């Protein structure tokens, strides 16, 4: 399968199953699009009719190009057949029984009251709660016990607002540092915060212990303060921005992301990216809101073309910034064509419900943070492990080849079939697809590949 598209003045041909990317001129672009269905004679006739006025487009040239395409096909770099499908189940089985990442819900409560929050202000449709140190320690022990030979173990301090349980986080990290030496593991922690409780102690601790911090900022003040308000309805932008600037300044070269959400109220989110840049932030992520379709903040069909155009605009902004010597990172455009993920990762996806689970303040296990509160999906708990094997099996069997809608999608090895939670909320099945999200994802991948191609050719 190939995907041919034009963006940023480049003609791009992606060969899906080899992962090869080709930059081609107009003539080759047209020949490739006809190669599998027409003869050389038919192609020559059509190409000469379209480009014959150009001095370098002759029958000999067309034949040479046709032969070059044949050589690429022979080398497995064009029209590569799908050899992965038969092994998809086996590849995913490589991780069977292994847990390597936990999302720790250390606080099911929040000091902000954002109406668009998928976690319903941190409560996940349940009671407010704080995770005890005992539950936290048991969760880490559960992770170590079930991690097999995996050395790198990931733990995300999540909420609600995790800093509302900061004392426990500090004690738990100290416990983890002791346990990782005993067990020959390497804990990588992430903290996701709304910034309200960030102070110098938090900054110093996080910059020492957290591999990554995710700082929630929606961009422009009026955009951010539309949703991200406290319980008095007062916007949080002015309180958090100086704290985040200090946080990032003191973080040096350690990973962080400014993570925004865009909604129906700001489909023109590139302006929010520009605001983040003007505030001095360079590691950026901007996510489409996840909410019920009847929620006023939900993205609509009318928003879709605007959002798609914004993704292209963002890609061009990135190229401009590179030329100006002020590059920045956009999470969804990070793409390493040379040493990115292997086919196993591309088929199996995020590992929700198998390699990756969420832990509630009470120690219950769920397939991921987005399923917390959905009783049907409760897997078990950190003391007795996974008991609901039927649900775990459902997730374990889930891969890019189990979703019929993905079969003819060129982007399937970049999204692994998409997010199970998004699919469930859109279709009622974790094996469904969230087609609106697919549209956005495909555009993001087109932009990401174009950016890598443009950087390669110095455009």
């Amino acid at each position: 399968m190939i995907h041919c598209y034009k963006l940023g003045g480049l003609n791009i041909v992606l060969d899906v199953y080899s992962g090869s990317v080709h930059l081609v001129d107009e003539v080759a672009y047209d020949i490739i699009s006809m190669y599998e269905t027409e003869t050389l004679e038919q192609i020559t006739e059509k190409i000469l009719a379209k480009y014959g006025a150009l001095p370098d487009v002759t029958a000999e040239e067309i034949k040479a190009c046709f032969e070059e395409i044949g050589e690429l096909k022979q080398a497995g770099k064009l029209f590569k057949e799908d050899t992965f499908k038969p092994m998809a189940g086996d590849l995913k089985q490589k991780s069977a029984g292994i847990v390597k990442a936990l999302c720790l819900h250390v606080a099911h409560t929040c000091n902000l009251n954002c109406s668009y929050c998928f976690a319903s202000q941190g409560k996940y449709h349940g009671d407010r709660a704080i995770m005890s140190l005992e539950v936290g320690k048991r969760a880490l022990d559960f992770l170590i016990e079930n991690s097999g030979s995996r050395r790198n173990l990931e733990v995300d301090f999540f909420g609600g607002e995790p800093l509302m349980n900061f004392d426990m986080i500090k004690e738990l990290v100290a416990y983890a540092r002791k346990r990782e030496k005993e067990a020959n593991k390497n804990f990588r922690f992430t903290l996701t915060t709304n910034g309200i409780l960030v102070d110098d102690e938090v900054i110093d601790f996080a910059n020492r212990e957290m591999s990554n911090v995710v700082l929630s900022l929606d961009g422009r003040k009026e955009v951010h303060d539309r949703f991200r308000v406290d319980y008095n309805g007062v916007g949080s932008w002015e309180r958090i921005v100086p704290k985040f600037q200090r946080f990032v300044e003191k973080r040096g070269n350690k990973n962080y992301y400014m993570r925004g959400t865009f909604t129906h109220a700001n489909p023109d989110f590139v302006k929010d990216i520009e605001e983040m840049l003007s505030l001095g932030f360079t590691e950026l992520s901007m996510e489409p809101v996840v909410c019920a379709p009847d929620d006023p903040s939900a993205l609509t069909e009318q928003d879709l073309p605007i959002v798609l155009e914004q993704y292209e605009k963002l890609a061009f902004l990135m190229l401009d910034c590179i030329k100006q010597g002020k590059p920045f990172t956009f999470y969804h455009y990070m793409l390493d064509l040379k040493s990115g993920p292997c086919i196993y990762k591309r088929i199996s996806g995020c590992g929700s419900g198998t390699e990756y689970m969420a832990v509630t303040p009470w120690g219950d296990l769920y397939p991921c943070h987005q399923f917390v509160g959905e009783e049907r999906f409760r897997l078990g708990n950190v003391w007795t492990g996974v008991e609901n094997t039927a649900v775990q099996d459902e997730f374990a069997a889930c891969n890019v080849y189990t979703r019929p809608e993905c079969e003819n999608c060129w982007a399937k090895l970049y999204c692994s079939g998409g997010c199970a939670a998004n699919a469930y909320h859109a279709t009622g099945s974790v094996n469904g697809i969230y087609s609106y999200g697919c549209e956005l994802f495909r555009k993001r991948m087109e932009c990401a590949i174009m950016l890598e191609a443009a950087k390669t050719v110095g455009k």
Partner: protein
Amino acid sequence: MKRIQTLDTKNLCESAKNGGCGECQTSCQSACKTSCGIANQECENADK
């Protein structure tokens, strides 16, 4: 004339042979939390 430029990319078929070490980051542990994109994850296979 050269009409096709092939970029240097990872060979996915080759990666089936020694891939799957599982040491790379879980995609949702980074910045998104509400979507699945694995293409931006860095390979950490020591034997690659």
